[in-house]
């Protein structure tokens, strides 16, 4: 039985590709046909806090694949659902990037996040995880958690950190010293 020349060449090329780059083929097929092997879930779907309040939640990152996943980086992000509200995620949390230990297949790891609500309004907070290319990790494509919806009410704190007694006290003390001196001078004269 003889194969046509073109079919033979195609078979050889396919075999060579499978031998040379099994990882690449695997990633491509996983990305295109299989569900991502990493999943992220958050400990709460929503929260309601006042401006300036801190709140915490936990993200659970699961390796649902059949191979260990290493080199994963989890990143916290914040966005506003309201047009025109500026959000600087750095103000919400100064520790937004975590480098995860390898996760064996079927296992998961948890990451705790603490966030301070610095703007009023409705915000979406989510965690994305992606692998570092150097680690040959799966997935290079980011995996994103569902959003935690934060409703932040604007409450005015007129005494942040208890500063008011100081802010009023020092000028009052200087004014009192000034008044006492002026009174003394007037009595003398």
């Amino acid at each position, binding site marked *: 039985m003889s194969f046509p020349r073109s079919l033979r060449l195609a078979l050889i090329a396919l075999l060579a590709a499978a031998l040379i780059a099994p990882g690449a083929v695997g990633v491509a097929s996983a990305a295109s046909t299989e569900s991502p092997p990493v999943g992220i879930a958050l400990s709460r779907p929503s929260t309601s806090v006042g401006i300036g309040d801190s709140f915490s939640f936990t993200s659970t990152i699961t390796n649902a694949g059949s191979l260990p996943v290493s080199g994963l980086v989890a990143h916290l992000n914040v966005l506003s659902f309201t047009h025109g509200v500026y959000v600087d995620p750095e103000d919400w949390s100064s520790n937004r990037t975590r480098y995860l230990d390898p996760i064996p297949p079927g296992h998961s790891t948890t990451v705790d996040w603490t966030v301070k609500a*610095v703007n009023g309004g409705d915000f979406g907070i989510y965690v994305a995880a992606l692998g570092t290319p150097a680690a040959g990790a799966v997935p290079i494509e980011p995996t994103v958690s569902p959003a935690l919806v934060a409703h932040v009410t604007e409450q005015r704190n007129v005494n942040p950190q208890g500063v008011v007694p*100081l802010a009023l006290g020092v000028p009052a003390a200087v004014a009192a010293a000034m008044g006492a001196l002026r009174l003394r001078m007037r009595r003398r004269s």
Partner: protein
Amino acid sequence: MEATAEQATPKAVPAPRARPAWAVVALQELRDLWLYGRGLPLALGFSALLSVVTYLAASNQSLNFLEVHEAVNLALQVGVAVGAIITLLTAADAISGERERGTLESLLLTPAPRRDLVVGKLLAALSVWLVLFVITIPYLWFLGRNVGAVADALGAGATVGTLVALSLASLGIIISALTSTNRLSLSISLFVLLALFAPTQFPTGAQSGWFGDFLLRVNPISAALHWMGKVVVDGHSWGHDADWLISPISAGVVLTAIAVLAAPRWMRLRGGSPG
């Protein structure tokens, strides 16, 4: 009853040691400034300004917008800058003010050497800085108490602030001796201040080139504030960026020398350029 020799000759009472003329002048100036003058109203305005700055810093800090060390540095920079400005304006009134009020003649007729008059006035102007820095202390303590930033801020502020205040007070005395009217003296002083503080307002990009860096280093005020920021915000040791203190120290030495050595010759009933 015979009088003994001891009774006959009264005990020699040592004559009270006379105060040096500069101390007499300084005391009189201090009295004028703090008991009757504008010292305390200025201190009241200064404390109100620092209260506003501290309130803003505290509210921003509680919302994560401002890091604690940056909040301390902000209050310290405002304290040093405004304290130095008020010191300069007080010194700028020292001689031209006397000239305008018609009291310079009687001052010049006293037996006090003119250099002592200048030194006394310089010390009185520096007392403004001292009082304003004392007022700054509770604000710095409040903002930096939880992170141990208070000692560094106080040390750096006292060092740099005193250098800047000494330079500006000397400059004020020099301008005041040279100018014919108080208005002119204050105008020139304000203009010099604006020129000195302008580089601190440059955008970050303009400060990054060699020329921007040179300008910041040459200007004693921007160099002093930069050094202070490095110590308070970045936690550098005092010696780490000591080269930034070259211009504040040089300005302090040179301007004080000119004020003490040359300005007395320019103290005349009529102001104007030295002839």
